[in-house]
């Protein structure tokens, strides 16, 4: 609780209470359209550059020409273009598109989860949702269940796993009607570990030839399996869910707490359930194609709020763009750092995210500050 300091300065007087960690009381005055346009351009440029980076370097000009040819329906142009065209269009472009949608999806899921539990140190990974999604997906791929629903089997199972993990963590951490922030994080980490172990066990028990690769994929994530169909489905699902989150527009009210939200006409229980379902859907969609990639959903929402504040109509799209940027570059690093070997991308996001997580933990008052 923040008591007014004794002798608090008079309103309008020049003396001001010391600002929080952000420094000045006002936001940096970058006009919003400029920020959006800048980030979008940066992302487009990054995508083009990232497509060119690899064992065979391809200049941005060539990449753009190939993409233009393909998108205009002209197909591969000229003799000798076939090889570059194949690398750009068949190998790297789908991977970058998938990176964009996975990064955006994880970041938006992070924003939503943080609003739902009113805890800026939460994200789908920390709360065990990602691990639940991976366990759900593995549970169907290693059993006969995979043929059950056709193409949507994997995402559906991942969604169910994420939902179940989230509900479980919530149930464990909720006692006597109050949700303890500390207990929520601890329960999430415990459930995440348990489900990660379950995932490994299920994969290894299936005794497939590439079992170790699969374990790495599900626990640390990778975009190596990117294909156009997967990338585009994932992009469409992430776009639709992000739009739904924005249209519902209830995150701003949810973070105020139940009583304030209710006084402003929101049914907090229903809104929270809907938002949480959206976060689980996003997590399931993303994990089904990329495994569990940690810390994107934790780091990116913070950065977005630093740039544009907590107002979710701005924070959600900015987080989506930043998440996409982060993942495009993390994946580029993952496939080039130890080339020709590939690093699991989760190692890179953890390298960025863990110091950040520790800093956020130290700044937040997790011990004393239990959410109602």
């Amino acid at each position: 609780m923040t008591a007014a300091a004794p002798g608090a300065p008079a309103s309008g007087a020049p003396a001001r209470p010391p600002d929080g960690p952000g420094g000045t009381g006002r936001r940096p005055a970058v006009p919003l359209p400029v920020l959006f346009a800048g980030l979008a351009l940066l992302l487009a440029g990054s995508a083009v550059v990232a497509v060119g980076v690899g064992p065979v370097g391809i200049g941005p000009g060539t990449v753009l020409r190939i993409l233009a040819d393909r998108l205009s329906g002209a197909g591969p142009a000229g003799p000798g273009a076939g090889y570059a065209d194949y690398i750009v269009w068949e190998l790297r472009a789908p991977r970058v598109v998938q990176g964009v949608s996975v990064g955006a999806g994880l970041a938006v899921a992070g924003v939503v989860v943080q609003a739902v539990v009113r805890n800026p140190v939460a994200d789908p990974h920390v709360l065990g949702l990602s691990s639940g999604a991976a366990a759900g997906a593995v549970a169907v791929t290693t059993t006969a269940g995979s043929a059950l629903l056709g193409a949507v089997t994997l995402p559906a199972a991942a969604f169910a796993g994420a939902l179940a993990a989230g509900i479980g963590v919530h149930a464990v951490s909720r006692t006597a009607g109050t949700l303890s922030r500390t207990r929520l994080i601890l329960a999430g980490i415990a459930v995440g570990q348990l489900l990660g172990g379950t995932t490994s066990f299920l994969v290894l028990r299936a005794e497939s030839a590439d079992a170790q690769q699969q374990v790495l994929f599900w626990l640390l994530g990778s975009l190596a399996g990117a294909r156009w169909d997967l990338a585009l489905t994932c992009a469409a699902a992430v776009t639709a869910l992000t739009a739904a989150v924005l249209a519902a527009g209830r995150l701003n009210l949810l973070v105020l707490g139940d009583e304030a939200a209710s006084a402003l006409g929101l049914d907090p229980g229903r809104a929270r359930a809907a938002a949480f379902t959206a976060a689980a859907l996003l997590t399931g969609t993303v994990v089904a194609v990329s495994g569990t990639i940690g810390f994107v959903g934790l780091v990116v929402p913070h950065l977005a709020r630093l740039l544009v504040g907590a107002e979710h109509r701005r924070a959600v799209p900015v987080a989506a763009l930043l998440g996409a940027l982060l993942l495009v570059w993390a994946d580029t690093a993952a496939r080039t750092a130890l080339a020709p070997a590939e690093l699991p991308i989760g190692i890179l996001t953890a390298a960025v995210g863990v110091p950040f997580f520790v800093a956020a933990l130290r700044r937040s008052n997790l011990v004393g500050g239990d959410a109602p």
Partner: protein
Amino acid sequence: MRLRIRGVTAGWTAVPAVEGVDLDLAPGTLTALVGPNGSGKSTLLKTVYRVLRPTAGRLLLGEDDLWRLPHREVARRVGVLGQDQHGGFDFTAEEAVALGRSPHLGPLGRLGRTDREAVAEALEATGCAHLAGRRIAALSGGERQRVLLARALAQRPRLLVLDEPTNHLDPRHQFEVLDLVRGLGITAVAALHSLDLAAYCADGVAVLHRGGIAGHGAPAEVLTAERLREVFALEGDVVPDPVDGRPRLLTRPLRTRPGARRAPHREEARPS
């Protein structure tokens, strides 16, 4: 708009915290709801802003039963100012006040002209216009509470419910927030801990004691020596303020002289 509380019984457990409460709030006045800890102030207010459903009784705002209206409709008519609190999510003052328009917005949630006017008016009325672009976390407690009051005003409510709005505020801002509310001309009810603040700032005082109304009227009529002794276990007198003539309440602990009669209910009534 008039609020009529009729026979309201409510509580969080099987034992009701308030029972059969009848209370009328005259239009455009500020009523202070006072009572010792556990007397049911907060419980009663929560039935007004629809956090706790009463097990019996009705709450009529004008002619409409607050518990029969749709939730959003109530949010358009009743504004709430709770205790000072803000999470780790940092809005600017203007964004926070704009959230007050939520119950009035369409499905896409875009602010229209009326909404922006209501936000500007609310910031103006609470003297917060100069704070509009500042982050909530960077405000002092008094400023923050004024911004949250502005959020409630942006709802354009016909009734304001203030649940211990002066907690965590220094004395100056306690007077300031309540005088501001009284000057708005909106029917308002405020749960208050300080009896002197209630006497000085409110048009009327309602005393809650053991879940029932023990008195309601002008401060000087309600805060009598006898009632203070009985409900609050305090000696006290209402006197006119020497400067502005408004009622002040002087209180002192109950003296227990040898042979003096013990005040009834002394064990239960713990002054805060």
